[in-house]
C-alpha cells in the first residue's frame, strides 16, 4: 500500500510524519504547479471549487509516481468537502486511475474514535504506537505554525530582502527531516535563533492585515499567489484566522487540547451578522473581521475560491460587518482563471488605502470591497 494525500500548505509534513511512524509507505504528490491545476481543471467538474480540482491534479500526478491509496478527511456537510473523496474517486476511475480510498470521517464523539479508525487502517499497530504517530504529526504542524507566526513579523521588517524566507525554508526542511520529538524542538530552536539574527528595521511603519476565508485558499500559497510573502515584501505583517494545527485540534481531535485554538473567540464575533453555522469557515470569516479589528489590525482580506458556498454567504454580509466594525475588507475570489497581475494590483491598491487611512487620511466614508 502506497499512500498519498492532497497538498494543503504545510500539511504534508505533518501527515507524512504520522504515516511513516505507522509504518506506511508514503508517496507525496509533487508540489502543486500549473500542471496540477491544468489536470484538475480538465477532468474536474466545471463548477467544482478550486481545492477539488487541485486535489484531483495531485492524485493524477501521485499515481504516476506509484501511489495506490488515497487518504483524506471526510465530513458531514453542509459544504462540499465532505464529499470530495468520493467524487474524486469516481472521476479518477473513469480515467482508468484506480485508487483505494481511506476516508477519515470526522469522529462524532471524541479523539478515541479517531485513534480507533487510524488503528484499523494500519492493522497490527498498538494503540500506543498510533497515539505516538498522531502526536508526532501534530507536533510538526504545530511547530510549523508557531514559526510561521514569527516569520511574518520579520518578513515585514527585514532589511535584506529574502533573509527571513531563507530561514523559513531551511526550517521546513529540518522539520521534515526530524525523526524524534527532540529533533523537532531543535529545528524550532534553530529557526528562532536564525530569525533573531535577521537585521530588522523596527522603525518601519508596518501595516497589519488579517486574512480570513476558506481554509484551502488560506493555507495553500499556490492558490493565493503566496499572498503572505508578497505582502511581507511590501512591509505588511499578515496573520490568518486559520492555522492548520488549530483546525486539526478542533475537527479531528474535537478540541482535545483545551484553549489551544481561538475558534470560539472568533466565532463569538459573528452574530448578529451570522447567527448559525453555515459550513466551511463561513462563521470564522464573518467573526474574524471584528476579531481582527479588536486585535488592532488595519485591514482584512477575505480569500475564497469561486463558487465556494459558505464564503459567498460571508461575502454577502461583509460590507455590513466592515461598516459597523470600521475596518476595510477586501474580498478576493480565486479560480483557475485568476491572473496574478490583476490579483497583485488589487492587493497593492488595498495596501495603499490602508496606509492612507493609518496616516490619518480620510477617504470619506468610502470602503472598498472586491467581488
Amino acid at each position, binding site marked *: 500500500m502506497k499512500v498519498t494525500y492532497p497538498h494543503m500548505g504545510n500539511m504534508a509534513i505533518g501527515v507524512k510524519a504520522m504515516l511513516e511512524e505507522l509504518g506506511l509507505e508514503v508517496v507525496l504528490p509533487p508540489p502543486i504547479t500549473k500542471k496540477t491545476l491544468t489536470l484538475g481543471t480538465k477532468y474536474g467538474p466545471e*463548477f467544482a471549487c478550486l481545492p477539488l480540482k487541485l486535489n484531483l491534479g495531485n492524485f493524477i500526478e501521485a499515481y504516476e509516481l506509484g501511489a495506490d491509496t488515497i487518504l483524506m478527511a471526510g465530513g458531514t456537510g*453542509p459544504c462540499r468537502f465532505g*464529499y470530495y473523496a468520493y*467524487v474524486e474517486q469516481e472521476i479518477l476511475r473513469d480515467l482508468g486511475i484506480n485508487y483505494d480510498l481511506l476516508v477519515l470521517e470526522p469522529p462524532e464523539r471524541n479523539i478515541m474514535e479517531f485513534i480507533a479508525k487510524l488503528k484499523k487502517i494500519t492493522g497490527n499497530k498498538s494503540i500506543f504506537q498510533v497515539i505516538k504517530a498522531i502526536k508526532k504529526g501534530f507536533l510538526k504542524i504545530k511547530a510549523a505554525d508557531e514559526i510561521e507566526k514569527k516569520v511574518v513579523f520579520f518578513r515585514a521588517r527585514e532589511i535584506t530582502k529574502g533573509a527571513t524566507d531563507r530561514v523559513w525554508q531551511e526550517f521546513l526542511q529540518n522539520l521534515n527531516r526530524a525523526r524524534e520529538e527532540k529533533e523537532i524542538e531543535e529545528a524550532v530552536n534553530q529557526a528562532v535563533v536564525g530569525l533573531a539574527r535577521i537585521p530588522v528595521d523596527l522603525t518601519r511603519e508596518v501595516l497589519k492585515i488579517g486574512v480570513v476565508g476558506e481554509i484551502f485558499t488560506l493555507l495553500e500559497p499556490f492558490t493565493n499567489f503566496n499572498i503572505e510573502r508578497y505582502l511581507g515584501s511590501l512591509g505588511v505583517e499578515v496573520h490568518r484566522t486559520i492555522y492548520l494545527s488549530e483546525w486539526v485540534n478542533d475537527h479531528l481531535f474535537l478540541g482535545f487540547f483545551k484553549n489551544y485554538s481561538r475558534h470560539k473567540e472568533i466565532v463569538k464575533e459573528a452574530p448578529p451578522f451570522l447567527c*448559525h453555522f*453555515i459550513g466551511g469557515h463561513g462563521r470564522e470569516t464573518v467573526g474574524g473581521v471584528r476579531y481582527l479589528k479588536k486585535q488592532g489590525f488595519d485591514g482584512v482580506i477575505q480569500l475564497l475560491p469561486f463558487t465556494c458556498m459558505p464564503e459567498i*454567504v460571508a461575502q454577502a*454580509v461583509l460590507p455590513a460587518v466592515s461598516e459597523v466594525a470600521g475596518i476595510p475588507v477586501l474580498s478576493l475570489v480565486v479560480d483557475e482563471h485568476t491572473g496574478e497581475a490583476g490579483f497583485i494590483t488589487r492587493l497593492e491598491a488595498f495596501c495603499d488605502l490602508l496606509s492612507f487611512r493609518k496616516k490619518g487620511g480620510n477617504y470619506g466614508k468610502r470602503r472598498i470591497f472586491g467581488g
Partner: protein
Amino acid sequence: MKVGIPRGLYFYDYYPFWETFFQELGVEVVTSKPTDKEILNLGVEAAVDDACLPVKVFFGHVRFLKDQVDYLFIPRYVSEYRRTYICPKFLGLPEMIIFRLKAPKVLSHDLTAYQKGADFYRGVYVFGKKITPNGMKVMRATYTAWKKQKAYLQKKYLGYQPQDLIDGKQEYVPDLKKPLFAVVGHAYNINDRYASMDLIKKIRRFGGEVLTPDNVPFAEAVKKAGLLPKKPFWSFAIKNFGGSIYLAENYPLKGVINLNSFGCGPDSIITELTERYLKRKFSLPFLNLTIDEHTGEAGLVTRLEAFWDMTVERSFAGESNLPAHG
C-alpha cells in the same frame, strides 16, 4: 399584519404549507410576482457577483416585495430530513437578506429536522407562538397546514409539477403516456418559468411530458441514493440523484435533462455523479443545461430541439440504438 413570501428558493416546496398556516393565524399573505426581467435585475444588482442564479433571483423577489409588506417571511431551513442539510446558502439566507438588502423586518426561525423529523414542526410551533400567544391556535394551524402540504405532495407523486399546482390556472393534467423526459435539478430552477426559460412548457409543447425529482417520494430516493459510496448530506442531492435513478427504473424515459444553475456548488458534485451513474446503468441520453442571468433563449431552444430529434423522432423511426428503458 401583512407577511410577504418571496417567490424563490423553497417557495415551491413549502408554499401550500405556509399559505395555510398564516391564513389560519389570521395573517394576510402576499407573494411576489413570478420571476421576470425586473425581478432578475433587482436581484443581480444587489447580490454578490458570484452567487448562484437562484439566490440572485431570491434577492430580486425580496427587493420587489419588501416595501409592500409589514414583514418578510424568510425561515432558515437548516435541514428537511434527518442527517441532511440543504445548502450553506440556505443557512445564511436570513442574514444575507437583513444585512445585504437592508431589509430588517424579517420574520425568521430556524427549522431543522437534523436530529429528528418532529423537530421541524416543533420549530414551526415556536415560530407560530411569535405571531400569536394562543398555542392551541398555532397547533391547529400547523395541523391544517400539514394536511394541505400532504395533499400537495400526493399530487406531485402523480406527476404534477409544483408550477402546475401553484402558479397560474392550475388545470393542467399531466399525461404520462407521452414521450417522457426526466428534468433533474432544483425545484426552484425547474419551476421558475423565467429562469428556466419555461423548459417544462417547451417540452410539453414538443409533445413530451416531464417528470422531476419532485415526483418521487423522498423515501424512494433515499433507497436509490444507497448506490452511492456515501449517503449525500444534502437532501436535494438525494432527491436529484436518487430521484433520477428511480425515474429511470420506473418509467420509459427518453432522456434525462439536467438543469443546473450557474455557480451552484453542490450541483457540480452531484450532477457529475448522477451523469456517471445514469450512463453506466441505463445508457440514457443526457443533456446538460446550465442557466444564468445571461443565458439566451435561442441557444436553449436549439439544443432542446436537437435533443428531442435525437431521442424521440429517431426512435419513432425505429433506428435508435438507445434503449428507452433500462
